């Protein structure tokens, strides 16, 4: 048997993934174990886990593959500093110590860390894949397609920010790329920064904020900031940005252009202006993505598209690409960000370096993205007892019934079942669930459970077979990466007064029969639930449907703002006790808040640094 370990580390979202003879055994992000969101450190705990899952030691691993090439990245840094000198000295001064002490000697650093697990580890087992090759491999190799166009779009890897490749069988050929500093990911991040959110984690909030605004600055952005060509390639006017030479994303010229300063996080109010800016950058992103995909479809005549890279997590743009029809089929790697680079690097080594053939199966190779740790019922009960939890143990059918009833009663339910998800989304293994028909559920979950901004929408998990009944989508979206509108028949017509509302005031207006998952523009970020990949979750929603006639639930990740998604039963119990989650279903144990010892409550609202 051949084992390949993929690693992404030292930038953000460190992760490890293990392939056995080309099949995924396990994959997990370091943050879930270290409890530090977006943990950039060496993924020691994640590696330990993936090895343990496969029952091997590091000595039995044939190759370890890192997900990018540090020398190439250093070359980009140096050339950029030279290009902008003498500006950029402060940035240079801050970057050099890390590079000269650590990142430039990455091979030694990796070997040193890996020798802690296997003292005989030798550097000749180490391989390096280019950042965007890792993304492209993570998008194509596990996809259900024999042949596909592979598009990767992110902030920046070494030089590339956007790449196009063609995958056929086990071959993946990179065809063209856009280079730093011209980057769609960095454009989006620049506006994330400008609207007062954290770069690398707040992009999702900008996307969620966009429907509250009008894209009234789209033309201004396209006129001044982005020189966009017909084929979707573009150049960014660096006059408005500062990321090549400074310590901020945007420059004074951008503030002057829009007439507003950068919003101060957490203190400055979000105004209609910020919502309009969010809507505008979202519209520009969609325009660029649609031009790229239309041009690729025209040029190559291939009907399947695979995507990865941070921008591929923009599910609103993904939905538009799918509906645009330039491609018949779209598959997006669920761990499209840098964590997924670990998996892609391992795949690249297996198929490209070792030239192994590829099996294409119906569905995909990701097993629903349930690739993380699982806890047996006995271990869960033991761990819960140790932390002082009071729980009742049920048979499986009873557990499903009790949990579905709690949901139907309007309770916020913690749902911890089976293997943890790989990637940023909770997909019904480490989720907080609620009744989507409830008018107050979005507010309750945002403010009392997740402790996050009230404008943020929630996603539905819907039975695959019922998706078209509720949404204008009749395909698979198992990874919550496609946004589509709710069906007309369940929408509620707005009154003139409601239509006249602006911005955040729109939030409290009931828009459909499932208001908790209907965003202000009638859209929803859909997860289709499949019996084959998550039978337990499918059974729960089916039971909820029997009780209520509604075949979907609200699904949000099992964490509070700034906390990594829970990994262990203890993490789940602590989060349960620190929030207004009322019921926790964990394995076959059911916990009710009223049964718990109140002295075990802790303040979770301020426990984690805000993201």
């Amino acid at each position, binding site marked *: 048997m051949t084992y390949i370990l993929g690693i992404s580390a030292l930038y*953000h979202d460190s992760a490890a993934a293990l392939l056995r003879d080309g099949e995924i055994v396990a994959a997990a992000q370091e943050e879930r174990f270290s409890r530090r969101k977006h943990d*950039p450190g060496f993924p020691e705990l994640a590696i330990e886990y993936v090895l343990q899952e496969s029952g091997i030691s590091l000595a039995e691993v044939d190759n370890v593959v890192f997900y990018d090439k540090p020398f190439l990245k250093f*070359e980009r840094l*140096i050339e950029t500093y030279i290009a902008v000198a003498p500006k950029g000295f402060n940035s240079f001064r*801050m970057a050099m110590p*890390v590079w000269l*002490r650590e990142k430039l000697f990455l091979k030694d650093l990796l070997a040193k860390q890996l020798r802690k697990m296997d003292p005989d580890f030798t550097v000749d087992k180490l391989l390096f894949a280019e950042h965007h090759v890792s993304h492209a491999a993570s998008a194509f190799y596990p996809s259900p397609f024999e042949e596909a166009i592979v598009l990767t779009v992110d*902030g920046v890897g070494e030089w590339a920010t956007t790449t196009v490749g063609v995958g056929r069988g086990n071959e993946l050929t990179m065809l063209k790329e856009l280079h730093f500093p011209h980057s769609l990911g960095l454009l989006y991040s620049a506006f994330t920064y400008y609207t007062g959110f954290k770069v690398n984690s707040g992009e999702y909030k900008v996307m969620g904020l966009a429907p509250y605004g009008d894209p009234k600055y789209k033309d201004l952005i396209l006129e001044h900031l982005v020189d966009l060509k017909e084929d979707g390639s573009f150049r960014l006017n660096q006059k408005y940005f500062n*990321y090549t030479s400074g310590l901020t994303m945007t420059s004074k010229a951008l503030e002057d252009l829009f007439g507003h300063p950068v919003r101060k996080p957490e203190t400055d109010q979000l105004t209609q202006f910020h919502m309009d800016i969010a809507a505008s950058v979202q519209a520009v992103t969609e325009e660029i993505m649609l031009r790229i995909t239309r041009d690729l479809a025209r040029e190559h005549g291939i009907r399947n598209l695979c995507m990865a890279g941070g921008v591929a997590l923009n599910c609103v743009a993904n939905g538009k690409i799918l509906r645009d029809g330039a491609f018949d089929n779209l598959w997006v790697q669920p761990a499209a960000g840098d964590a997924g680079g670990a998996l892609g690097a391992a795949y690249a080594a297996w198929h490209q370096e070792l030239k192994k053939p590829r099996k294409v199966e119906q569905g995909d190779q990701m097993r629903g993205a349930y690739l993380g740790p699982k806890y047996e019922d006995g271990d869960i009960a033991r761990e819960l007892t140790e932390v002082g939890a009071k729980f009742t143990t049920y048979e499986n059918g009873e557990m499903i019934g009790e949990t579905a009833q709690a949901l139907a009663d309007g309770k916020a339910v913690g749902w911890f079942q089976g293997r943890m998800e790989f990637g940023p989304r909770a997909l019904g293994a480490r989720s907080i669930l609620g009744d989507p028909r409830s008018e107050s559920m979005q507010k309750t979950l945002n403010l009392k459970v997740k402790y996050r901004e009230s404008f943020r929408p929630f996603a539905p998990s819907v039975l695959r077979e019922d998706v078209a009944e509720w949404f204008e989508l009749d395909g698979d979206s198992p990874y919550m990466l496609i946004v589509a509108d709710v069906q007309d028949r369940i929408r509620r017509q707005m009154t003139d007064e409601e239509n006249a509302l602006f911005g955040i005031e729109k939030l409290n207006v009931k828009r459909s029969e499932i208001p908790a998952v209907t965003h202000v523009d009638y859209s929803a970020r859909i997860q289709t639930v499949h019996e084959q990949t998550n039978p337990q979750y499918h059974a729960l929603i089916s039971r909820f449907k029997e009780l209520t006639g509604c075949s979907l639930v609200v699904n949000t990740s099992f964490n509070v703002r700034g906390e990594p998604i829970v990994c262990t039963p203890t993490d789940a119990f602590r989060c349960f006790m620190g929030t207004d989650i009322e019921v926790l279903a964990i394995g076959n144990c059911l916990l009710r808040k009223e049964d718990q010892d109140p002295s075990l409550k802790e303040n979770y609202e301020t426990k984690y640094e805000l993201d």
Partner: protein
Amino acid sequence: MTFVSEIWSFMKVRKKFWLLPILIVLGVFGGLIVISQGSAVAPFIYTLF
């Protein structure tokens, strides 16, 4: 030594020999910065990573 030979191979493959004098100067300057600073804490800006 391995590092030096690897960076030499890298420059050969990338045909970027003009980087060599710059790298040496940067190495010296960078070395000074490293010596004069206590820790190598990563800055927060995305593109530096």
